[in-house]
């Protein structure tokens, strides 16, 4: 496959996200620019200007009408995707590290940084999908996380029942999305190794966390128990679940133990790693980035994936047929049997 290199950013990428149909990619970076691209050919659709300071996070609603971004200028902004018009700005005391729309696009959460005098807080807003309707300034719910270490990532579970948070000590916690009550925790990752990314499965009944402890773990949303663990040899910055029928997960990180190989020097050495979701075995790597991978995202239709790196490039890869045909022996037999 020939990766498409998107060079719209001057500084390191912090997050990349696909639209629900997989045709648009939104990328944010430490330069205060949000770019939107067509994933089919890498053509840039446009950019959203307004933020000052580094941008940490981006998310698009399921109808691809609204775009939310959060950054180091202590604001979260809401944009209309099509025109680039800034619809709403929310101001906070500290920088916004994560924004996420709920599954139905009706709610939006923002995670604000912990600083001296400020606790890590998660704000939830009710959003209307109609861009002409002004978004509320008042949060519907505010969760102040005081007993636990700083929140690094958060997201809405299935049916907006729970909010799952990842913390800087490697634990994940579950909170009620209506009342803000803390329900349970699980200290799944190694102590002190922060959870760098949290990405959902298609139906949000399980999620994948990536951590600096060189592992990514698959958790069940309701019970928070660890279902699978994928071990890499480098601290991970991001992990994504490929949609069915492909049973793969993609991990991205950096600072690997590089061995000297005979690769072309025009290509970078940092790799995205592919693991089988069920068997936890590594099945392939794709190199190309010139710096650690900061974010990986998979097209919800499964045709491509993209990675944003520290080198300022977004690389979009459209999979070849061998990717779709690959199966373990056991899987092949199981399929054959069930047909008979």
């Amino acid at each position, binding site marked *: 496959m*020939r*990766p*498409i290199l998107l060079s719209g950013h001057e500084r390191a990428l912090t997050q990349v996200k696909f639209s629900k149909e997989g045709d648009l990619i939104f990328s944010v970076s430490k330069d205060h620019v949000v770019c939107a691209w067509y994933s089919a*050919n890498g053509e*840039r659709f446009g950019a959203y200007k307004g933020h000052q300071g580094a941008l940490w996070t981006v998310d698009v609603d399921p109808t691809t009408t609204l775009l939310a971004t959060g950054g180091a200028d202590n604001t979260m902004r809401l944009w209309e995707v099509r*025109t680039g018009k800034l619809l709403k700005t929310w101001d906070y005391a500290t920088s916004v590290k994560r924004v996420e729309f709920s599954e139905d696009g009706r709610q939006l959460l923002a995670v604000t940084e912990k600083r001296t005098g400020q606790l890590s807080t998660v704000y939830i807003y009710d959003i209307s999908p109609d861009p002409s309707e002004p978004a509320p300034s008042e949060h519907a719910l505010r969760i102040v996380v005081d007993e636990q270490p700083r929140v690094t990532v958060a997201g809405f579970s299935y049916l907006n029942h729970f909010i799952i948070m990842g913390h800087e000590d490697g634990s994940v916690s579950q909170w009620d999305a209506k009342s803000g009550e803390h329900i349970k925790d699980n200290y799944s990752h190694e102590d002190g190794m922060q959870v760098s990314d949290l990405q959902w499965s298609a139906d949000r009944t399980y999620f994948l966390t990536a951590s600096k402890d060189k592992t990514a773990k698959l958790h069940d949303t309701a019970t928070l128990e660890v279902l699978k663990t994928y071990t890499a040899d480098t601290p991970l910055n991001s992990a994504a679940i490929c949609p069915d029928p492909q049973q793969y997960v993609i991990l991205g990180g950096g600072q690997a133990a590089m061995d000297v190989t005979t690769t072309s020097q025009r290509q970078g050495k940092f790799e995205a790693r592919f693991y089988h979701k069920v068997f936890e075995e590594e099945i*392939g790597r794709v190199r190309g980035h010139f710096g650690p991978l900061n974010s990986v995202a998979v097209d919800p239709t499964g045709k491509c994936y993209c990675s944003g790196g520290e080198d300022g490039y977004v690389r979009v890869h459209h999979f070849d047929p061998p990717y779709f045909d690959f199966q373990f*022996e056991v899987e092949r037999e199981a399929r054959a049997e069930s047909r008979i």
Partner: protein
Amino acid sequence: MATTVQNTPGRTDWAEDGEPELASVLPQPVTTKNKDGTETVVSYYLNEAGKKVKRTQRIRRTVVKKRENPRVAERRQWAKMGPEANKPAGPGDTTTLGENIIFRPQVGFKAGGVQEKAPEEEKKNDALKKMQIKCRICSGDHFTTKCPFKDSMAAPEEGTGEGAGGEGGGDGIDAAGGLGSTTGAYVPIHLRNGRKGEGERMGGKFERDDLATLRVTNVSELAEEQDLRDMFERHGRVTRVFLAKDRETGRAKGFAFVSYADRADAARACERMDGYGFGHLILRVEFAKKADGK
């Protein structure tokens, strides 16, 4: 006549017209439909040098039907915004195509350069397979210089060589030459017969035997060969002194080799001379390491 030209039939004054400008009038493009469904278009144009160029194109038109989500189709029609607002359609300079990567998931994937094998290595492997490569030492499937048993198995050659060498001078040499080079290649004298062949060396067996050779280090720059010889002569007969000299300046490089006739002498000298002060430096004496390679 009239300045306007008219193409009336029966006109006979065409000789008075100006130069007909046939050369600058290009024929119209001609499109023909072929039997196999393609179209052939023949057109003419003037290239940069002003020459008339005929271009023939064979075009096949196929209709590819693709199913697309209506929302995606709608988004494709959106006008580009922001910095892309007035740019033409299609990827601009922010987009480039990378190098082709072969990505094939496989069971038991091992990282560490297995994916990419250098083309030179592949060629070498192929060449090896085609040629009948045989090692001269162990008859294995590799080059002699790459033989893993170079040191250990080169020895059997010496053993057989020495037996033949002891048979007598002249014959020995011929036989040795013959033995060492059963393949017909020339083997130089110092490589035949197992290296330190008896009766081959001038001046006796222990001429350069490293068992009686001492390495002296930390030698002062002002030292000379005669000085060292005198110093070490006290402990026994010195057969050879080699002082490492800088070719250009002639001064000593700091170490020397002293060879004795008798091994015991060498051992005694080693004990006595180690730590001996010479010039402004303290000498260090030890047995020289065996010369490797042969």
